[in-house]
């Protein structure tokens, strides 16, 4: 559904040429929900804007829904829904009017647009707001209108650029719910960018981590966490020296740290390793006082890959 090869984009600024995207290769199959995760300035939006025909790439090629983004831009535009970073809901126009305008822009007939507008107003819980202007809506409502606008012509691919940035936690959760529901009911291909770790983790079937204009990891959230971060086991034992020795010998053990009576170790598949750990301690006559497994987050993955925390860079 989405393919890109060697996609590059640089911008000229006063300070010189900035390479925002440095060679993006991308394949998204029909029906996938893929998230681009990365800090601000990683090149996520620039990538999306190239895929949605808004920005010509400096180098490389991309096709969306079977059409080249440069040579067949109009065909791409007919097949995609694009929800940009800004609130596209509009200021002075009434919500339902704006949906109808969007329908007309997407070459729908008036009757089809009216039907679809009412359907989306119901689906995205916008009933009662039809005659309100864009600027009178709350942040969460605006975002739902933006999504409705992107969905008017039932596109085959929906691009969402930072859909929940700036929303309060409640509105964010509500928005996710809508996106997940939409995904289930339509099987639409969804490509979203986010700098929220939990958003990528909970919603996406596949996460591409982007940093500095490049994709540095690409897998399901589970596999990324298991392969690149692992589970952190901590054990308090009456003989921590023995515990640390055992920990170091566990399969694929990393980052063994002893701090007083506490020993920490990072392993793959913590649930299976922990009983083994405890049994080994038993056999050596050490008594376990407390045990804990911490599942990794995508932030641990990002930290492992870049040495930086995404939480610090995210704003």
């Amino acid at each position: 559904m989405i393919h890109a090869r060697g996609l590059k984009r640089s911008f000229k600024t006063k300070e010189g040429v900035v390479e925002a995207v440095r060679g993006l290769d991308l394949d998204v199959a029909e029906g996938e929900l893929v998230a681009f995760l990365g800090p601000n300035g990683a090149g996520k939006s620039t990538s999306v804007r190239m895929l949605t025909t808004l920005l010509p790439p400096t180098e490389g090629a991309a096709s969306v829904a079977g059409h080249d983004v440069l040579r067949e831009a109009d065909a791409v535009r007919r097949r995609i829904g694009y929800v940009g970073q800004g609130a596209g809901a509009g200021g002075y126009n009434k919500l339902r009017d704006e949906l109808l305008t969007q329908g007309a822009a997407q070459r729908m007939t008036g009757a089809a647009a009216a039907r679809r507008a009412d359907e989306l107003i119901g689906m995205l819980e916008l009933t009662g707001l039809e005659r309100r202007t864009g600027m009178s809506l709350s942040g969460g409502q605006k975002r739902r209108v933006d999504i409705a606008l992107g969905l008017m012509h039932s596109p085959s691919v929906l691009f969402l650029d930072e859909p929940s940035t700036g929303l309060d936690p409640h509105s964010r959760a509500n928005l996710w719910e809508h996106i997940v529901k939409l995904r289930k009911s339509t099987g639409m291909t969804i490509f979203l960018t986010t700098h929220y770790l939990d958003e990528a983790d909970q919603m996406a079937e596949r996460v591409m981590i982007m940093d500095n204009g490049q994709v540095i990891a690409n897998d399901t959230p589970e596999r990324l966490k298991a392969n690149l971060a692992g589970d952190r086991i901590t054990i308090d034992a009456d003989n921590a020296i023995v515990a640390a020795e055992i920990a170091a010998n566990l399969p694929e053990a990393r980052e063994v740290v002893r701090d007083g009576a506490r020993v920490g170790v990072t392993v793959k598949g913590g649930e299976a390793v922990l009983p083994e750990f405890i049994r080994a301690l038993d056999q050596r006559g050490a008594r376990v006082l407390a045990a804990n497994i911490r599942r990794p987050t995508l932030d641990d993955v990002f930290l492992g890959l870049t040495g930086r925390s995404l939480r610090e860079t995210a704003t």
Partner: protein
Amino acid sequence: MTFFRDVATSFTREMKPTLADPSWMAFGLVQPILYLAFFVPLLDVGGSTADALQWFVPGMIVMLTLFGTAMVGWSLTEELMSGVLERFLATPMSRPALIFGRSLKEMFPLALQALALILLAWPFGLQLHPIQMLFGLALLALFGAGVAALSYALAIAARHNTSLFYMVSQSVALPLMLLGGVLLPIENGPGWLYIASRFNPLTYLVEAERALFAGELFTTTVLWGVLIAAGTAVVGLSIGAKAIRKASL
């Protein structure tokens, strides 16, 4: 065909909020009315207030048009920043149609305002020449659409520096108006000012409007006005279309 449909879509989208809240159109009339009330009595162009009005009102509606449309780019700047324009650019809609529809819409508020001004001045002695005056309004509408398109092009060019939009639009509109002899007869001024005014396209439009308001129709002065209005529309819309075609925001 789809091009015209897109122009209509863009036009309707801009027109609806204007119709829903016409109060700002009335607000736009405040400045010209103040001029009519507090400035016209100071004019000495022929003797009576009626003569002064006949001379001053056409200039005033040109001013209304110029200032009303030179700043419309600001609304596009807002939509550029908020992401509304980008949303339309990601649809198959014709890009020039987005600018054409908007610019054509600007014809209507200014024509209505100019009409209101004429009707307000009527009881104070303004002589009506309905056909010539309606033709004058049509010229203004054409000129206004061109200026609006230029203003939109400027908004797109200055999208990364919005204060630039204000600086350029203000520093172009005001000298054009002053040099167009809108407020006072430029013939009475020093020679250099008169010569400078001959290089100002607005001068010819103001003179054509004055001729029309005096009841002329098939004269050279009016023809010059037609050429200036049509030329502004063609040049403005072409530049606007080019600006949005190239725009990758």
